[in-house]
């Protein structure tokens, strides 16, 4: 073997072989990592709207809960929206099994009546389900509106999207 070839082999082992060994180590160790539970997708909401108070703010909220909940997930960061809601999703967060998403001031509510969605995920049974409520801040007469939601199966992605 010429000295050029020898140098090439040594360089190849150092620059390609060793990193590949490192990659194998990373893949092995990474298996032990845990990521946040998956809650991405569309959730069919079941809420008892009949029990809601009849003021405008509560009506808006119950109309939101009459539609599906759409969650886009990036780790613990969530973008939460309702299919009947505005186009801009609300930022939320996932902490363990707990979801929290401030929905801003819904139409019909006053500016200081901040609406918040809180829910807890039950990841043990498929399809996953959520139980939680939507509450309105600074509204003594508004009881939190409870809801339950079940995750809808995802459409299988085809050749494109």
């Amino acid at each position, binding site marked *: 073997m010429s000295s*050029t*070839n020898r140098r*090439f082999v040594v*360089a*190849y082992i150092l*620059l*390609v072989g060793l*990193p*590949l060994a*490192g*990659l194998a180590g*990373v*893949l092995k*160790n*990474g*298996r032990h*990592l*845990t*990521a*946040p*539970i*998956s*809650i*991405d997708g569309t959730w069919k909401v079941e809420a008892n709207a009949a029990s809601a108070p009849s003021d405008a703010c509560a009506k808006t909220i119950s109309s939101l809960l009459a539609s599906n909940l759409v969650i*886009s*997930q*990036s*780790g*613990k*960061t969530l*973008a939460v929206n309702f299919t009947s809601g505005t*186009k*801009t999703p609300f*930022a939320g967060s996932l902490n363990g099994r707990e979801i929290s998403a401030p929905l801003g001031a819904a139409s019909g509510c006053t500016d200081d009546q901040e609406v918040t969605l809180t829910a807890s995920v039950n990841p043990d049974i498929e399809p996953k389900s959520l139980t939680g409520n939507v509450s309105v801040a600074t509204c003594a007469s508004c009881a939190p509106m409870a809801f339950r939601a079940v995750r809808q199966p*995802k459409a*299988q*992605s*085809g*050749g*494109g*999207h």
Partner: protein
Amino acid sequence: MPNLFILTLQLAVVLAVCRVTGWLFQRIGQPKVVGEMFAGIALGPSLLGWIAPHASAYLFPASSLGFLNALSQVGVVVFMFLVGLGINPRELKKEGHAAVLTSHVSITAPFVLAAFLALYLYPRLSDDSVHFTSFALFMGAAMSITAFPVLARILDERDMLRSRLGTVAIACAAVDDVTGWCILAYIVVLIRSAHSTHSIWLTIGGIIVFGLAMIHGVRRLLRGFERVYRTKGAISENLMALMLLLVLASSLFTEYLGIHLLFGAFLMGAIMPKEAKFVRYVLDRFETITVTLLLPLFFAFTGLRTNIAAVKGPEMWMYCGLIILVATMGKLGGSTLAAWLSGMPLREAAGLGTLMNTRGLMELVILNIGLDIGVISPALFSMMVMMALFTTFMTTPVLSLICPKEMLQAGKVEAERVPPTVNLREGEGAAA
């Protein structure tokens, strides 16, 4: 049924915005395709949706995106065929040890660094529906890709295609792309098989049989196209249609096997005859409509899925910075080191590293697949798109700084090379 008014309006707006932005970017010395990539982002929620949400909702209603996507995917299928067509495995052999080492390091260095980064990002930006192995391998494949067509375009614009640096860069980029796509195929199979009733081994076996049949069987038949071209100096419309049919059939077959449409198109291009004039002839026939109309639709569709607002807060921006840093260190740093160790002067080696760091359109194609199969989250998708834009945008100015034109002229070689491949410049269909 698509709303034809909205669809036509979308085509017109995308075309106009891409052309204007492309032209503006050319004014500042960037390849037009970089401008088109930015135009796509500008048409999405990151800019248009942010400053004029009502106009954005009118122009790109959710119900219309399926049609826009379908059209753009047709463009990407043809584009991947053209990329495969432009790749010539013999190029690498000509360049010897330097190219072999550089190309392999330019894959392994960013790949391994990306896998290390995945250890940090997986618990933060992914979820438990994605296995770490799939996540890490995807990050590696996405970071190790080089935009072969954009690279060819930059080299051509700088009259570097026949320089030593240019030829090594083209050869390395070809190897990177083929390797990157093979790894991506494996990841897609891995993820899809988890949701499929078919065994993964059945899928892998099918892919191997299909690949062998294409390389050892279909490839020979394809020589007939070249023979006709050599005899008549042209290929009839019927034969061009047959070629397109073969591309579509190959795409459908890989989709059926459980990988992706695009792999079939790429493979069909890769096994086509590589005689320079024939390659140029086929590229000229297919390029114009693909590059002028269909690829801008893909940029727009990618832009509509990219939301820079999803990268919110200092923590998210830190992740984004880290991704750009790791991608650049791995690709630019790794390629530079390998080329330098192979005997290339340091400045030239750094120039090669800079060229290899160009990710461009190929990166966007891969990222869209990753988002489709759910291996990356929307925020990570947006960060990776920004990384693709950043690394592609930096190529020209950094290259000018490291390797002035006069320096490169000294390294010019006389050998005739295959003309540059996919043309991502003007829609005039001229040679790239």
